[in-house]
């Protein structure tokens, strides 16, 4: 197999693309700490068709390359010495296509794919226990008032009684009820969660919980309570302080948020 030959280069590109799309995105990225999810099979097919068209366009862009690319295929179709290979392909390829078709029509007992946005766009303002709060530009007021130790103690107590069953003592989303919930609770030690969010966003998520998600966040599935029914404003800001302190992280600032917004 000569890897400089256009035909094998094309094959190699297709195989590599398949490996990356099928396994790389879903399984390799999480290994280096980037949150991800397996690509649904229909999307894999779409991506692969795109790659195939790309390969064909590239190969046919120059007539020499196109001829070289086609040559192994033409030889297989006409060369008397390749009669056996020809026979195998003429039987094998249709069978392969038949098998793919069977996979498409056979009865399936898998759960339907559910796509949800993990961090949907927040509203501009929310009502908290009846009072309107503007989220844009909102900072955690406890960072600039009172005794930080006392705030953290309140946050710790609030967290342990209310959040530990799902989010866990280690804040890693591994509480004793976590494995009984679908979708699983957020892991605050993961760089994909609170570190990427402003404290106002976290306040919104805590106050309004699963039921307060927009539809793209699949509010019907989330077991996150709407904590405004249980926690007051001070307790909510305190537990937010606790989340960042205990995970040794800092919230996204409005400056970062603004820079990102302009870049878009």
């Amino acid at each position: 197999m000569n890897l400089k030959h256009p035909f094998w280069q094309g094959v190699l590109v297709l195989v590599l693309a398949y490996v990356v799309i099928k396994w790389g995105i879903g399984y390799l990225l999480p290994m280096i700490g980037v949150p991800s999810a397996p690509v649904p099979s229909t999307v894999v097919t779409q991506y692969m068709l795109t790659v195939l068209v790309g390969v064909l366009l590239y190969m046919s862009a120059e007539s020499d390359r196109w001829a070289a690319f086609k040559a192994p295929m033409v030889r297989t179709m006409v060369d008397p010495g390749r009669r056996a290979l020809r026979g195998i392909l003429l039987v094998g390829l249709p069978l392969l296509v038949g098998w793919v078709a069977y996979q498409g029509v056979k009865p399936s007992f898998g759960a339907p794919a559910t796509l949800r946005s993990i961090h949907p766009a927040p509203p501009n303002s929310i009502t908290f226990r009846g009072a309107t709060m503007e989220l844009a530009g909102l900072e955690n007021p406890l960072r600039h008032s009172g005794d930080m130790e006392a705030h953290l103690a309140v946050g710790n107590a609030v967290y342990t009684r209310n959040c530990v069953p799902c989010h866990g003592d280690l804040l890693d989303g591994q509480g004793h009820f976590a494995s009984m919930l679908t979708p699983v609770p957020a892991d605050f030690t993961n760089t994909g969660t609170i570190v990427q969010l402003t404290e106002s966003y976290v306040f919104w998520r805590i106050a309004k919980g699963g039921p307060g998600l927009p539809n793209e966040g699949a509010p019907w599935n989330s077991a996150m309570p709407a904590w405004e029914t249980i926690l007051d404003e001070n307790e909510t800001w305190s537990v937010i302080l606790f989340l960042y302190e205990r995970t040794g992280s800092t919230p996204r600032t409005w400056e970062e948020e603004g820079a990102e917004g302009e870049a878009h």
Partner: protein
Amino acid sequence: MRSGTLLKTIATFLLVGAAGLVAQENENGRVLYDRWCAECHGAEGLGDGSAAASMLPRPRTFSQARYQVRTTGSGQLPTDDDLMHVLNVGLPGTTMPGWPNLSDQQKRDVIEYIKSFSRFFAAGPAPEPLDFGSDPGGGPEALAAGAQAYLTLECEACHGAAGRGNGTSAPTLEDWRGFPIRAADLTEAWALNGGSSVNDIHTRVLTGLDGTPMPAAIDAMNSGVVSPDEVWQLAHYVASMGPRERPRLREVVRVERASEGLPQDGSDEAWGDIEAFFFPLAGQVIEVPRNFAPTVDGIWVEGVHDGSEMAFRVQWNDPSRSPDSEWDEWQAKILATMDLDGFEAPALDSTGAVTVRWPDAIRLQFPFEVPDGAERPYFLGGTTRQPVYLWTWSSNDGVGEGRGRGYGSVEPLPGELQGTAEWQDGRWTLYLRRPIAAGADGLTFSEGVPIPVAFSAWDGSSGETDKRAGVSSWYYVLLEQEPSNAVVVTPLIAILLTGAFGLVLVRRAQGRARA
């Protein structure tokens, strides 16, 4: 001999002195303890942290140095390795996790600090693990001998004949502080506090679980009631009572198409051929009053249909067949000691007896219409705007259909759902049957379409009623379709078309080559 005694005395003095020094200087241990442990175990190690009352069993009290998971004799202190083991893997079936976030040195510091809460550690020589002998091995004969030892040691008095924690003493059990504690369900080895291996179980049987009613079998062994081999065989027998790991969650209940007739009741042998699906339940900790320590932690579901009717069998472990006056004491203790989150327990009468006994109950929840897209009613009982369709059962009222507009509210609906339930040896078996086509109100279970389903369960004798429940997320049931011709025809057409296309290509290429 005399010099040995002298050495021991000197060693004891040194240890006491060293322990005292450590207690004073173990600043790292104190900081780590305050940071990670105190909120449950209390700043002074009294097991009275701010969240303690929501936990069953309660967090350990360190000041009395009574430890469940030890390799030392009953009433003895644990070894440092015992404590390290618990910090590494946690206590399954409780709220105590393992602590992979702490380094080994940090864990050692925490252990030293925890030990400093009790004077016992400083006072004596380092505890020594028992000699556990060697496992003579399992096998059918060992299991039979183990089953005999289970009777000899009266394990069934608390754990029940089938091991589901439903023995006659189970309702009376309390830990050494008087808090209620459940007899372990031995069929759910994954939730055994001290681990699920034969070795783990053997160690727990021999050493007992100090601070709980679980006694140590070592005295019975030493006095010849059971032999060392029989204790090992007992461990093999207990390990054989159920799966070691929690069954894997599969999201879709496959409702098979019956080749001949539907099962007629919950004990029909036909269920033996039908796949059972396990769904874990978490406490309802979303709406007040929350239930932090539900009794029912999972249910098994099986389904089968014949194109016009469908039958389901739902099974779950519950040590009490509520309502049952035998469990009054248990119920009163749960309601008196647990964090009820605003649930108002009915008053006891003048003799201190309970006045209300709740039934056991279960609920299967569906949408009223199979959703086109992802949208469906709120998983926790639906909402006013998007109600849910319910199959309800309680040990008082039997089976019914209903509409839920939020968790806890059920408006009864007329329907053709039928069912019977039987409680045997710590396990409920509920048989349900309904035509596939809906009545006036309800859901038609179209074949081949995943239909969202969620589950809830209540144990009346643990004061579980209304929102105090165990709940699941949304999953699916899927009625198997009649095999259609398309399954054969479509691949066949694909094969023929591709084959013909290939032949034409080859012919043309060969023709062109000849030319």
